[in-house]
């Protein structure tokens, strides 16, 4: 038995809703978590940002639940709740004292089945403004705030579903209509395109009956339409492509985007371990060499986007000091990425050790366990991957990391986005 042994059972209702139950009565809390197989990659041209706006509308009430009532009831019950939208999916979740489980099942089933009758123009206009303010707060009014949008445009080709980001454009948000809400709901918010996970303290038999009672009568829905645009793309960008922004930023920053294998294939685990050798912790290559020894970077960041369609993306960035030359920062980053071609087994072991601790610690929260079970069920029909994920990482060899560096981290697979403070030019 591995270090992880999260229990689970799988079920499927007649309408196609997939259900995962993970019983653990240690604490008197329960998590209800729903993943819908829809995200920004499904957005039609001219409707970027709509999946996320729709997520906001899901909190505006449903046939039997007036506006604000959802939040009032969950907060009053001692629960926390939220939702997030991502490229490949949208999730909704609440964690509650375990005696309030049925409240969450009622709320989630009501909006899965009867959301549209509660929609009106005033609610749409209100949430459109909220989302536009979210975009301003998190992106438009922030130094470097447009990096994500610019990087995606360089790493993914025209017509690829990841070419635009989740937040979308103001123009497209303005164009969204109530008809869009209704048709998006009918197309994507159907039981057969969703996973429901209940984790924590509950009675499994009773809960399965409750899930059937609350969700079973919702009609199943048609198969999901194919993704818009052109989802397939070459494994490499094919060149070094560049974008440069001179403007309102405090420090120079170089951001490198790299196409990597999608989350659905084994190559992603190799990319994840390589990323970790490069950037997890203070003994990692980037921190050690760029921040600590050469002191050319104030901070470094790495992230591997776990995306399903065609290619994921490895993000690597370094922030310089006042007056740093961006060319030197870029050369330093590129040097470390290419240098992974001599990654050692000691480095790989350390990276896996830290990842293992992080993974185990992430399972301390019942909401996080539920979220991961939903993800593995929705993406791979296998919630059990939660328990074996660490073995996938442990299986990665130094040779594979070196091979990954040689194949993927060269100048022929690099999008370089540079920010330069206006007063430096």
């Amino acid at each position, binding site marked *: 038995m591995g270090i992880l042994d999260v229990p689970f059972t799988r079920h499927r209702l007649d309408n196609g809703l997939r259900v995962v139950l993970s019983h653990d009565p240690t604490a008197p809390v329960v998590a209800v978590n729903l993943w819908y197989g829809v995200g920004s990659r499904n957005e039609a041209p001219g409707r970027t940002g709509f999946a996320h706006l729709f997520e906001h509308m899901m909190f505006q009430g449903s046939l039997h639940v007036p506006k604000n009532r959802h939040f009032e009831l969950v907060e009053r019950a001692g629960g926390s709740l939220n939702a997030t939208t991502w490229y490949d999916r949208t999730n909704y979740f609440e964690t509650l004292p375990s005696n309030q489980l049925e409240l969450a099942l009622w709320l989630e089933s009501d909006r899965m089945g009867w959301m549209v009758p509660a929609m009106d123009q005033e609610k749409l206009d209100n949430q459109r403004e909220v989302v536009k*303010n979210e975009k301003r707060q998190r992106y438009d*009014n922030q130094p470097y705030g447009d990096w994500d949008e610019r990087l995606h445009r360089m790493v993914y080709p025209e017509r690829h579903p990841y070419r635009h980001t989740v937040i979308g454009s103001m123009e497209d948000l303005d164009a969204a209509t109530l008809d869009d809400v209704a048709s998006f709901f009918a197309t994507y918010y159907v039981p057969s395109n969703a996973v429901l996970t209940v984790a924590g303290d509950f009675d499994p038999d009773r809960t399965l009956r409750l899930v059937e009672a609350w969700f079973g009568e919702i009609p199943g829905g048609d198969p999901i339409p194919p993704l818009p645009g052109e989802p397939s793309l070459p494994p490499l960008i094919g060149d070094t492509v560049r974008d440069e922004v001179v403007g309102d930023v405090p420090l120079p920053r170089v951001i490198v985007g790299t196409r990597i294998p999608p989350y659905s294939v084994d190559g992603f685990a190799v990319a994840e371990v390589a990323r970790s050798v490069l950037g997890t912790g203070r003994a990692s290559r980037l921190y050690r060499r760029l921040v600590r020894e050469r002191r050319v970077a104030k901070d470094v960041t790495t992230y591997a986007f776990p995306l399903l369609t065609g290619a994921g993306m490895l993000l690597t960035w370094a922030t310089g000091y006042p007056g740093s030359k961006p060319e030197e920062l870029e050369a330093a980053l590129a040097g470390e990425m290419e240098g992974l071609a001599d990654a050692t087994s000691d480095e790989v072991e350390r990276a896996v050790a830290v990842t293992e601790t992080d993974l185990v610690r992430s399972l*301390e929260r019942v909401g996080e366990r539920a979220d991961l079970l939903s993800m593995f069920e929705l993406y791979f029909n296998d919630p059990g991957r939660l328990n074996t994920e660490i073995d996938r990482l442990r299986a990665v060899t130094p040779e594979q990391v070196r091979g990954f560096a040689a194949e993927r981290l060269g100048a022929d697979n690099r999008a370089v986005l540079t920010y330069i403070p206006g007063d430096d030019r």
Partner: protein
Amino acid sequence: MSTVDRTRAPEPAALRDFSFPEVQRRDLPGGLDLRVARMSRLPVVSAVLFLRAGEATLDETRAGLACLTGDALEGGTRNRSGSDLSEALERVGARMGVATGWEGTSVSLSCLAERFEEALALLAEAVREPAFPEAEVERARSQTLAGIRQRAMDPASLASDVAARMIFAPGVPYARPVAGTVASVEQFGRDHLRGYAGASFLPGDGGFVVVGDVDAGEVADLAGRHFAGWSGSPPGGGDFVVEPSSRERAIHVVDRPGSVQSEIRVGHVGVARSDPDVFSLTVLNTLLGGAFTSRLNLNLRERNGFTYGVRSRFALRSRPGAFEVRTAVGTEATAPAVREIVAELEGLVGGGPTGTEVEAARDYIAGTFPLRQETAGQVAGRISELVVYHLEDDYHDTYRDRIRAVQVEEAHAAARRHVRPAEAQVVIVGDATAVVPALEGLELGPVKVVTPL
């Protein structure tokens, strides 16, 4: 054949009780207060070493020294370089972090339980024998100075820093950014850090909290071994009186031309952690701006669409911290949002909260309490608050009862005592040309365009 009634919320089942994990306490030689709690569902450990080496004890000329010393702690020990120390920690899968605040320095550690002894040995070595090599000190100082530059261009950080300066009288430590200023940080060198660590990274009045899949007796043995011979107390200080910068409401605008949003802060001096009204204020703040369904959020976000979100809070420190409302709104909504915030504060003081609001807030705070104690790290954080603020041992055991005991009259009385809209300082970081005329039109007080810092 549905058997459910969708027209009303289902009745809750019987509540299963939650108990805060039991804490074992011992005093280690040297004055370190050891507290251990067992949480054994997963094989993990989270530990916090709290040292009373905080920014509030430093005068203005040394502002930022505790933070910088904390940042440079990872720079290595007498026996190991910084990279060697990091490698050793990562080899056992441990993460160590240092967080410095007004009250002290917290060195936190998390790892798998089977590696705790090795990780603890490294933490003890890092704290007890720091070397502060020149290159590492320079790095930490350069990073801090660059970070100050970043804060000055980040509208949210800038608004918070300016609000602190407008709320607290000059000379009150809380008036300045916790990490110090360019002028104070530039002067620090290796000797300052060595001197500060030597005098202040000492166990007296500090605590060591360990939570996770551990045995209290074994932890006591380990801690006794690794902290053996460590003694002494930090020098103390920080005996300041918190005075407001002004008792007259004013609007301070930091011009950020071209901003598409305004960052807004509305605040004044609040209360200390030890204030007897803290529980009433926790309930009051929840219904004002501490939950999604609070008055401020339902007004500014769900009714008016001015913002992505708005929150209020009382910063509870050893001495009175700020009471503050914070939000970011579209530029054209700046004046209307300020008007609504002030009106909500006035309404709270005047009409007071309703019985339903107080009940809902109590239920929310008490009900979500178990959700805030799910991880070893969260519980370690809770327990270290007892050490930091010298709270009673049963504080967390009685917390929910004390929240549930708050009555509507007490919450209203607390509002009248501690929420003072007429004394609020309003800080706006936004496009001055676009927002000043409408702010003046509010007639809430003088509108001044101020320089950042």
